[in-house]
């Protein structure tokens, strides 16, 4: 049996990687991928806590994770639609070039 701490650590690593990627890469889709990774890391966190919670029969963690997946899917759809629209406007997915909102 693995210690619950390991799962949490893994989730933290994936979260950090996702964050780093979202902040570092120039392509907008890769930012979205990073966000998905972060969400997944959070899901993993939920399930890990559910598994080692005092009352797993309540299924709270599972529900949370399921709904999170659902929301993530919706968000990915909308985000990708936005990227497509932005691409149509700016003809690039390079985030460094999309700075018309600069002050």
């Amino acid at each position: 049996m693995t210690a619950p701490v390991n799962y949490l650590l893994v989730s933290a690593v994936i979260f950090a990687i996702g964050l780093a990627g979202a902040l570092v890469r120039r392509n907008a889709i890769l930012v979205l991928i990073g966000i998905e990774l972060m969400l997944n890391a959070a899901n993993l966190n939920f399930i890990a806590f559910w598994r080692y919670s005092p009352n797993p029969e309540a299924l709270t963690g599972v529900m949370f994770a399921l709904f999170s997946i659902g929301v993530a899917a919706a968000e990915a759809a909308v985000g990708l639609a936005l990227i497509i629209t932005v691409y149509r406007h700016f003809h690039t997915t390079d985030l460094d070039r999309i700075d018309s909102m600069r002050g």
Partner: protein
Amino acid sequence: MSFAIIAVFTIAGAIAALTLRNLVHCVLALVLTFSGLAGLYLQLGAQFVGFAQILIYVGAVAILIVFAILLTRTHEPLAGLAVSPGWITSVLVAAAVFGILAWAIRSSAMSILPISPHPEISVRQIGDALMSQFVLPLEVIGLLLTAALVGAVTIAMREERREK
């Protein structure tokens, strides 16, 4: 043992997903990551969630991302660096976040939590819970998904159609 392997695959896939130059390769690495995560869910005993992960993430989200990549393809290669200037700050930020999280985990109660036995959960139980206890969130999620997809379609529609 199996945990370690799956964990390594997942993390490697995550790193690959965000460092490869070719976007399609990134998506494939992402699929690997999702699969690894599904494996972890199965290991934790949340079978339904694991399969739902495969179904939704690998089957829908990844494909969606591939579609988006294909639709936003530019002909010229990515000029200059693939990373934005100031990536060191970002990496440091991420590292700081990871550090804080790790430290929090380390000093939390979970580190000394005993290992409890495997919960026996059936899909039927999940279904029942969905329909009774979590029916409201279920409906809301349904609405949310509808709205999101309608919105996505509206946003991504071709501009000529809007003028009609």
